[in-house]
């Protein structure tokens, strides 16, 4: 049975089998989402030879880059059994702040960028403080913050798209060539962020505490984890990540767009859920979220390539979301 060399077994009988493949598939691991992604890729590869090319994959990553980055922050928050409806609006506000300061107020681009990141972080921090100190349910706090950030974006931008953005703020839209594929620096930043947070969640005490707070907050508190500090940290960190998403969004479109990100809150939740993270908190991975974002991107791109109307992409995404949440529910009930 045992394939690894384990430490000496205790004398008492061992009567728990290791988790079966089926249990693992059902327990929020990334295997299920990965299988779905591979099946989608295989399907589109068979239908059109324009799908499986380096250029097309680079395009898919660019298309999911902004939502994917927002979904990193969303994953952190959902792991703590929260939800963030405000991330798209915070991103839009941050992108308007950085571009307007640079273009209309003569602020040096680097400073404008830092202020934009700080604004996003501050909104995340405010979410975290309201969730822990008042305390209020994350759904309500971030619903309020969605409206506040949305309104501020439109007030501050005067409904104007900011053009003539300095090159520093669009630099991540530039590309380099690998083989014969053009890759944007923004794609690299996004992938880098996913890897960074995979490390932080999987290999550090902070990550353990995030899972514990989401899984059983009372147990976390009793074992001495500063649960409120962990939560505030998660929301503020998510805010900073939304600021980076704002920079990516500016880089991708070349402008500061007050209309940006309006459905990104729900799209980021979709990516998180498709990636196998439980909405009940405490289970899931950020690499799962990357896979979830890619599933949405691959389906959208693939259906476009084979000429299916875009409304079917939405239909399929909806079905997949319900399927993913069903799997989560069923696995929770089984593990009770």
């Amino acid at each position, binding site marked *: 049975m045992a394939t690894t060399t384990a430490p000496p077994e205790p004398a008492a009988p061992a009567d728990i089998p290791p988790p079966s493949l089926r249990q693992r598939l059902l327990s929020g691991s990334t295997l299920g989402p990965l299988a779905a992604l591979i099946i989608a890729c295989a399907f589109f590869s068979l239908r059109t030879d324009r799908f499986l090319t380096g250029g097309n994959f680079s395009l898919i990553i660019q298309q999911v880059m902004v939502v994917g980055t927002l979904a990193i922050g969303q994953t952190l928050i959902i792991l703590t059994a929260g939800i963030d409806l405000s991330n798209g609006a915070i991103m839009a506000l941050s992108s308007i702040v950085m571009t307007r300061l640079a273009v209309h107020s003569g602020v040096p681009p680097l400073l404008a960028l830092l202020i934009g990141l700080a604004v996003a972080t501050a909104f995340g921090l405010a979410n975290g403080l309201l969730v822990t100190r008042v305390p209020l349910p994350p759904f309500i706090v971030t619903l309020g913050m969605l409206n506040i950030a949305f309104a501020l974006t439109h007030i501050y931008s005067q409904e104007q798209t900011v053009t003539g953005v300095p090159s520093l703020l669009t630099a991540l839209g530039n590309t380099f060539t690998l083989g014969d594929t053009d890759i944007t620096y923004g794609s690299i930043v996004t992938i880098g962020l996913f890897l960074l947070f995979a490390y932080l969640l999987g290999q550090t005490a902070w990550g353990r505490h995030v899972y514990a707070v989401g899984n059983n907050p009372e147990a976390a508190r009793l*074992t001495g984890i500063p649960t409120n500090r962990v939560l505030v940290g998660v929301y503020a960190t998510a805010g900073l990540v939304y600021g980076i998403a704002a920079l990516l969004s500016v880089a991708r479109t070349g402008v500061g767009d007050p209309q940006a990100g309006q459905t990104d809150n729900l799209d980021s939740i979709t990516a998180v859920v498709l990636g196998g993270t439980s909405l009940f908190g405490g289970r899931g991975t950020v690499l799962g979220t990357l896979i979830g974002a890619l599933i949405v991107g691959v389906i959208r791109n693939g259906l476009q390539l084979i000429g299916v109307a875009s409304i079917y992409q939405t239909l399929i995404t909806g079905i997949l979301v319900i399927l993913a949440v069903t799997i989560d529910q069923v696995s929770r009930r089984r593990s009770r």
Partner: protein
Amino acid sequence: MTPAHAQPVMEARGLVKRYGQVTALDGADFELLPGEVLAVIGDNGAGKSTLIKALTGAIVPDSGEIKLDGQVVHFRTPIDARRHGIETVYQDLAVAPALDIASNLFLGREQRRSGVLGTVFRMLDKPAMRRRAAQQMAELKIGLRSLTQAVENLSGGQRQGVAVARAAAWAEHMVIMDEPTAALGVKESGQVLDLIRRIRDRGLPVVLISHNMPHVFEVADRIHVQRLGRRVAVVKPDEHSMSEVVAVMTGALTIDASDQAVVVDQEAATAAGVRPTGKE
């Protein structure tokens, strides 16, 4: 084994805790001696859990004094008590079910790698934690195939084992367990009682809150009987019968200064199955 007048590991005098109109603790005393298993019994609402919470910093009593090794202490949070080497196994276990066994054992006290990996990259030392966890589980003879199992995949007794092992691993002073066998079957309860004895044999005193008289009589060195917010008696299981102790718990008997059971309410005492002793 314990000298009669050994300094108590923990001692409390006159603890009072009110919740609005309800007086949960009404001047309760408490005393835990080195190396003993002390059972705390009492009816529902007698104030057992409140007493334990006061001793472990989960609540702050309105008045009264708590001494640890003869020194007055003021615990404000469970973390304060833990810093003093007091570990509690809560009734609902306080584990994170989705995390694995080793992670639960080290929850809140994770170990980092040595060198830059630990200091700069804050990397967990998973192999070391797993090794330590395996050693701990082996010492307590808790049989588990793999420490990378999520706790939710374990049986009730094994989960209890994880919670007890965590307490035993970190306790330097004492271990407190609130109803550790309440949710378990016969065989699993027996395993937990064995665990309690093994912890005591390592030299750590154990406080066991329980409803289950046979379990109490099986492992306890002394029994603290709590009634209406006070300690009404401390008895030795080999000096009094189970039905006498139950009668003390319900107020039908009291224990006098010379350790004799005195009937207060004959009807209730008879109902509790105490045979007339002639001494009234």
